[in-house]
Structures are given as C-alpha cells and as structure tokens.
C-alpha cells in the first residue's frame, strides 16, 4: 500500500503536477463527500465482480484477459432476456427484471468464457490470444445487436430500450448512481472465497493452477477443471455486465463497456489474486477513477492520470514479482 502511494506521488511528479493540491483534489473527488463516496463505490462494483472472474481463472492457470468480452456478453444476454418485458402493459418490479437479467448475464458470460476454455482444452489455443479475440467479437456483436435485433422500439438510435427507473436496481440516493448491487458484489466475494478455499472443487482448481502435474498424478482431470474455471470466470464477468446494465446503464450501446474487464486485471493482481484483498484493491482503483474526474476539471491531464497510475502499479507489481521469484530460483540453485 505504501508502494502504491509512492507510485502515485512519483507519477504526479513526473507529470509535473503540484503533488499536494493534486492529492487533495483526488481525495476530495473520491471520498470528500457523500456523492464522492458513492461515485467511488459504484465504480468498485464492476471492478470487484470482474476481479473475481480474473482471480478464478488465473488461479487455475488460465490467463483470461477476456473479462471485457465476457462483461459485454453478460450485458447482451441480460438485455436480450429483459426485452420481452418492455411489451408488458405494467412494468414489472425491479427484482423480477434483475433475476432475469442477472441469470441471463451469468449464462452469457459463462458461455463466452467457456468457449475460450474449450478452445484451450480441446485445441490447445492459448487463452490469452483467444480471449483477446473474443473481446473484439463481443464488442462488434454489441454494436450489431444495438442497431439490429435488440434496437429500441422506435428504431432511431443505436441503443436498446431503456429500463425505467422502477425497473432498475434501487439506489441509495436519487442524486447519485450507487445501487444495491454493491451488496451482491460483497456476497459474491464471500461466495468465491468459500468456493476457492472451502470446497473440493476450489481446491482442485487451485492445485491445477499451482502444479498441473501433481493434479494429474492424483487423478484430477485438469482439462475439465480449467474449462470449468473459465466458465465460472466468464460467469462472474458476465454478472458484472448484467449488474452494470440493471444498475447504472439501463440500456446497451457501443459505449456500454467502460473497460471494466481490462481494469479488473491490475485490480486482481494488486490483490495478489485473493478475493478478500480484492475489496480494498477495487476501492483504490475506483477512487482514482472517481477522483481523477474531479481533477480533470482543474488539470488538463486529469483523466490520463488514471491510466498512468494503473500502468505504473502493474509494472511495479511485475517488478516485485520478478524480484521475489528470482530470489526463489537462486535459493533453489544453491
């Protein structure tokens, strides 16, 4: 955490921004008011859910960087499942909408993730490659559907029908975006933690990721485990998409994805792929996202800042990993 703070300050120095004022602005924007806190937390929701997806796959040794595509696939599935509801005379309650959207989004994301897992297990296609490509496919599919089969009923804009506020997840405050999906995110953290550390399946998943040869020597089918881990990972990222749809966006368009799936990777890495540590890590990144928006009002480089800090955090992390693993190798050699 100290390291991250140092990286943040270093970045500000390199960009020649006034350190003290910038930090104050960042803090003000992220935590300075109720609105700020809400701004931060609402951004942490998709980061937590996608981050869990990253953890589940990476723990099994599947370097899924297709969270973005799975997020979009989840959003598409949610919008498609909800579409018939718009024809009803009486708009259904929010929880009906959400049950439908949530279940569909998990299914859509899981299918998208499992596709990459299946390609790896059956055909040996590197997950890193296939998931990147599937990201593009999902985004293009979204653009097509939003101006095609899923387009809003007036057929004027490249968007899906908009959920009325009564159909969306309830908010804490009508002035901000924070919605009850945050409870779902927290519950999911607990659920993933239990699966990974308290179930046989989660144990096998971690074992396969740690050493697939040991798994094999103990008659664990690592192909099957990896395929399931990709489905689960995709399901979590898809759920993030469904929650974003039913909680914040309300409709799909080409700008539906805000790179949450990509951003979740450094978030999960910073949490050392631990679901509990994911919460502070997601809040840290969400705070910089929320805070840099405020900063952007004062400094021209404000929004760029977030990318610089992310990159610096990931690079710093990689350097630390490389350093520690080098030490391990050296000890083994002696």
């Amino acid at each position, binding site marked *: 955490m100290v390291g991250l703070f140092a990286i943040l300050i270093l970045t500000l120095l390199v960009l020649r921004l006034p350190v003290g004022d910038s930090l104050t602005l960042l803090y003000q924007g992220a935590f300075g008011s109720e609105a700020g806190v809400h701004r931060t937390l609402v951004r942490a929701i998709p980061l937590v859910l996608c981050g869990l997806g990253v953890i589940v796959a990476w723990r099994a040794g599947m370097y899924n960087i297709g969270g973005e595509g799975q997020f979009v696939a989840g959003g598409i599935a949610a919008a498609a499942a909800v579409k018939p509801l718009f024809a009803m005379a009486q708009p259904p309650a929010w929880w009906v909408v959400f049950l439908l959207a949530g279940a569909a989004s998990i299914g859509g994301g899981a299918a998208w993730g499992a596709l990459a897992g299946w390609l790896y297990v059956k055909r040996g296609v590197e997950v890193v490659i296939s998931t990147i490509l599937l990201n593009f496919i999902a985004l293009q599919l979204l653009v097509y559907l939003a101006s095609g089969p899923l387009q809003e009923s007036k057929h004027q804009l490249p968007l899906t029908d908009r959920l009325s506020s009564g159909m969306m997840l309830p908010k804490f405050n009508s002035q901000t975006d924070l919605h009850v999906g945050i409870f779902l995110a927290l519950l999911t953290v607990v659920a993933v933690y239990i699966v990974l550390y*308290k*179930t*046989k*399946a989660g*144990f*096998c998943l*971690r*074992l396969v990721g*740690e*050493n697939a*040869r*040991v798994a*094999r*020597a*103990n*008659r664990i089918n690592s192909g099957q485990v990896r395929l399931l881990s990709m489905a689960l990972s995709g399901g979590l990222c898809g759920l993030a998409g469904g929650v974003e749809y039913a909680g914040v966006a309300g409709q799909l368009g080409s700008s539906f994805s805000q790179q949450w799936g990509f951003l979740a990777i450094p978030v999960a890495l910073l949490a050392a792929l631990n679901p509990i540590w994911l919460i502070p890590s997601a809040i840290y990144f969400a705070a910089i996202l929320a805070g840099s928006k405020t900063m952007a009002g004062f400094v021209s480089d404000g929004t760029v800042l977030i990318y610089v800090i992310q990159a610096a955090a990931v690079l710093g992390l990689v350097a630390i990993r490389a350093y520690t693993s080098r030490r*391990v190798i050296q000890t083994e050699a*002696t």
Partner: protein
Amino acid sequence: MLCADGLSKSYGAVRAISDVSATFADGEIHAVLGENGAGKSTLMAILAGFARPDSGQVSLNGIAIPLGQPFACRRLGIAMIHQHFTLVPQFTVGENLALARLDGLAKPLSVSRLAQPALEMARQLGWQIDPTAPTGSLPVGAQQRVEILKNLADNAHTVIFDEPTAVLSPDEIQDLFRVLRRLKHEGKAVILIAHKLAEVLAVADRVTILRHGKFIATAPIGDVNEEKLAQWMVGDLPSALTHGSADQYPSALYLRGLSVLGDRGEAAIRGLDLEVGRGEIAGIGGVDGNGQVELAEVLAGVRRLSGGVVNWDGKPLDETVHTGYIPQDRQSDGLALGMSIEDNLAIEGRTRTELTRGAFLRSGPLREWSKGLLSRFDIRAQSVSDLAGSLSGGNQQKVVVSRVMDLRPELLVAVNPTRGLDLQASAFVHQQILDAASAGTAVVLISTDLDELAGLADRTYFLSAGRLTEAAGASSMVGGQA
C-alpha cells in the same frame, strides 16, 4: 589428443565427478560409459568448456586449454553434439546451419554461402538434406543429422557425442555408427557418451567407465565383454536380491502383456508380465528411461495402457482399489511447492469422508489431521501453513509419503522414493514401505538404487527397453541385453 587430468566438480553439496583422468586419442572412438548420474555429462561439459572444474586441467596435444570457455574450446576444434538439439525449429535447415557460422551481425547475410560447407559435408556423408525444409518438421533422426552437420563443418578434430542414440531407431543408429567410423578414419578423436553396452561394444575402440563420479577403468574394447562392463558400471552386486518366493503371498496384482505408450507416442512398455501378492514387495530395477515412469503411471491410474491386462483380484484395476503413488520427482509430480503443507496433504484429505462434507472441505478436521501427520511422520516444519517449497528435500518427501501411507493403501507404487535423501530420511521411508508390506500392501518398488532393492524387495526384476527380466547379473541391470 585430448587429456583430462584430475578433474573434480561439485554442484552444491553433490560431487558430480572427483579426480577423473582420461586420454582421448586421435583416430579412435572412445566410449564413456556409466549409469545415470555417474558423471559422464559433467565430464563432457568440462571438456567442451560448458562447465568449469573445481580442480584439474584439460590439455590438447600437451598444451593446457582454457577452462569453462565454450567459445574458446570450439575455436580450438572441440565440437559437442548435444543430446538435446540446439536447433531453432522455426528456421529452415539452411538457416540453422548458417547460424553456427555467422561471421558478424553487421555483415550482409547469405544463408546459402554460410550453409555451403555443411551441405558439402552432408553430400560427402551420403545424406540427403533439403536446406529449405523447416527444421521442426523433420523427423528426429534427420534433425540429429542437422545438429551434427551444424557442429562439424568447422575443422573440428575432437567430436563429443552426448548420448546420440537415445532418440534414434535401429536403422538410424547404424547410419550414425557409419558416420562415427568415418570421422575416426579421417583422424578425428570421437568421444561417445553412452549407457547401452551393446552399442559401445559394436562401435568403440576403447572404453572408459565412470561410477558415482569416479574413474573406474579404461580398457581396449577387445579386453572387455558385456559382463565385465556391466560389473564396472554398477559395482559389486548385493549378495541376495531375492528373499522369498512368490507363492507365499496371496496374489493380487496381475499384469499380462502390458503395453504402454510414452509421452512421444513411443512404445515404452512392450508386453510386460508381472504378478505381485499382498504383502509382497516387488522390486524393479534398471536404468532410467526404460519404461519405469510409464509402468508406474499405469498402475497409479494416471496413464492409459495401450494393450494387455492389469487386474486386481481378477478384475480390472480401477479407482475402487486404494492405490498409493509416490512419484519419482517430488518437486514436479509430488508437491505443489507454492502451496502450504496443509494444502499438499489435502490432496489426499479431499478424498476422505471424515474430512469433507459433501462438496465442502472441513477446515477444522483437515487441520487437525494435517497436524497429526506432521507429528506422526516427524515432518520438521514451523506449522502446517508453511509452504511446501520451504521444506528440505527429506521433509518434502515425508509430506508425500505421509499423505500416501496414512490410510494403508492396498497397492503402493513408489518410484525412487529415496532419491536425494539423507540416510536418516531414507531409512524412514524404507521403514514405511516395509511396515505397509507387512500390513498386507502389495508394493511395486521401482528404483535405480540396487542397495534399496536388495534391502527391501522380496523379488527383484529388471526393466530393460520396456520388458522385465528376472535378476540375472549386472548386465540386465544396465539394459545390456536389450
């Protein structure tokens, strides 16, 4: 003439070779023979400059050569043909040949010019080589020719072949021998590392034997035979390798005509018969790479058999038979080094009804059980949360052994279970195996350590080229009758 004089080399606490001297004359094929780990590769690495000895020196025609400098050795005319090819599979044959003769990065590259001498040599040797073929697509034997050409075309006068026959078919081996003899007649010193006796006797003029890193003997090939070489390789045989007769144990494991494919699709086990009774320890010796791992994996249920019968009490062996498996390499197959001791024990624990509830693991009982194993098997660790990778080799092996032995397995398969362990840890593992057998476990103990087999096994067989032979002197032990 290349002379090695009093060479010693240690890796950490392990002495790879100690005080080895040998002379390799021009115009002869000189075989260096020894079991796995005898120090052959270390000696050759020193001669070719890839390793620097702790003491001793190497001289070429009476002049000391620089040690530990591969490029200098190469310029002096010492070429090494590696067992593991040093080719770029994506390059064409011509590009790989040119690579060895690059004369500077800044100069314009002419693959055909640089590859020419090597291709000329191929023609002289009677080899059909297509310089435009992608190297990775060639069969192994052809790749080896490229590897040889790559290293030979400069005017090498000393050529070291590191176990060149390991990957070749019988026809390809004959062709390789033709080339070795030709190099000899050109007046080159040919050094051949091998562990197969028949090959050495067929092609070598002189032979030097190493055992456990020590020089044993050098002799002209006319003065030795298979028996003699085998005895030099393995030393004095333990007096009794057979303790009991098969009939005293109720039979359980029954293998007939077992065939198994290895990782590269080769026939690793070819028609193997074996019977092991409850309480019996069947020892299987032999040099690594003769099908040991494949046999063990079939018995442990992690590799499919390609033919034959594996029965337990008259029915096909499957998961219902509680099988314990101690794999050969604890660090790659036995333990997840980055996980805790508890997690490594849970590999077994997850299959126990008292440690699980449905799909869930029961943390409390699992921890208590792990702590129990730690104290019962005397595993030295601060706590069960320590990473397996932080333990010493002996304690790592104890983690594997405790996991396997806790509930007495009906069938135990152990491969080199004490490799790399100190005396105390070895004795502990041996006692565990003996205890299991006396409690009625059928044990298949696969080991390259003859003392281990002599001390534990009721009967000992030798695995040679995928088949079993009954114990019959030293030569079956080193695969001489293959």
